[in-house]
């Protein structure tokens, strides 16, 4: 029993802390409900949705996806570096992830800007109402995520990061991966599914 005890404890482990997962699972449910409502309305007027979708720049969507996937990779590497205790590497990787996040925000601003310049707004049609609402709600998550990464960066800079450091790194990383995960689905639902 004694020999199995510690080993058994290492086998499973809640990344971050349990409360965070209530938020994450809640967010997943909320976004999938939005996607469901979108798909339902799309099924009522497929021609309108298909026509409006062609006005989205899929290249913007692709670039955004590559940015977020890469930032998630940097964050996953930062967590690995924190575990092996190489703090300068943690800081470099977090900074790279924050850079990708900032580039995502800039790219989204350009994308919205070019839509608005074309005269396409929230009220253009149903498809674009969903487009602005969903990408806007996601953008709020990106901004919160960047703030979380900033906090992880500051925390990792402390000479002694403290007893809760492992959970804070894992939890903050999990939130950033959630931002990435939601975008992957949003990209498919809004930009790719014809």
């Amino acid at each position, binding site marked *: 029993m004694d020999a199995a005890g*510690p080993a058994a*404890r*290492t*086998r*499973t*482990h*809640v*990344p971050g802390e349990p409360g965070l*997962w209530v938020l*994450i*699972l809640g967010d*997943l*449910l909320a976004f*999938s409900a939005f*996607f*469901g409502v979108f*798909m*339902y309305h*799309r*099924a*009522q007027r*497929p*021609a309108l949705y*298909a026509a409006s979708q*062609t006005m989205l720049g*899929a290249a913007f*969507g*692709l670039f955004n*996806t*590559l940015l977020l*996937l*890469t930032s*998630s*990779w940097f964050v*996953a*590497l930062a967590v*690995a570096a*924190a*575990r*092996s*205790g190489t703090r300068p590497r943690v800081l470099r990787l977090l900074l790279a992830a924050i850079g990708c996040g900032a580039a995502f925000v800039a790219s989204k601003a350009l994308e919205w800007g070019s839509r608005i310049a074309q005269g396409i707004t929230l009220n253009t049609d149903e498809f674009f109402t969903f487009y602005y609402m969903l990408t806007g709600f996601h953008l709020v998550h990106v901004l919160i995520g960047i703030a979380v990464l900033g906090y992880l960066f500051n925390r990792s800079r402390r000479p002694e990061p403290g007893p809760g*450091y*492992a*959970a804070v790194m*894992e939890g903050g*990383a*999990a939130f950033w*991966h*959630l931002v*990435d*995960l939601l975008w*992957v*689905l949003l*990209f*498919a*639902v809004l*930009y*790719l*599914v*014809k």
Partner: protein
Amino acid sequence: MNPMMRCAEALGFRPRLRVTVVWMLLILATLLSWDSARHSATHRLLASAVLVIAFVKARLIGVEFMELRVAPIALRAAFELWAIGACAVLLALYWLHPAL
């Protein structure tokens, strides 16, 4: 052992290589899905495949990057059920509309 070391042990060896392989798979799947979208006509099987691939990617992000593979079974199961359920509901709603 400190919590970080315990966790690193639970995650197994070579975590950097593992997350890098996952990242490469995600990028590859993204490029394939994007390429399929260049066909301007509606192709419902292709669109369904794109949706399924998106959920496979989301699941990969959850299980690997968010480390749900070492999470307690209840948490992992909740995530897996969400992925399967949400994907099935979206596919059903997609197929509701008559072909264009």
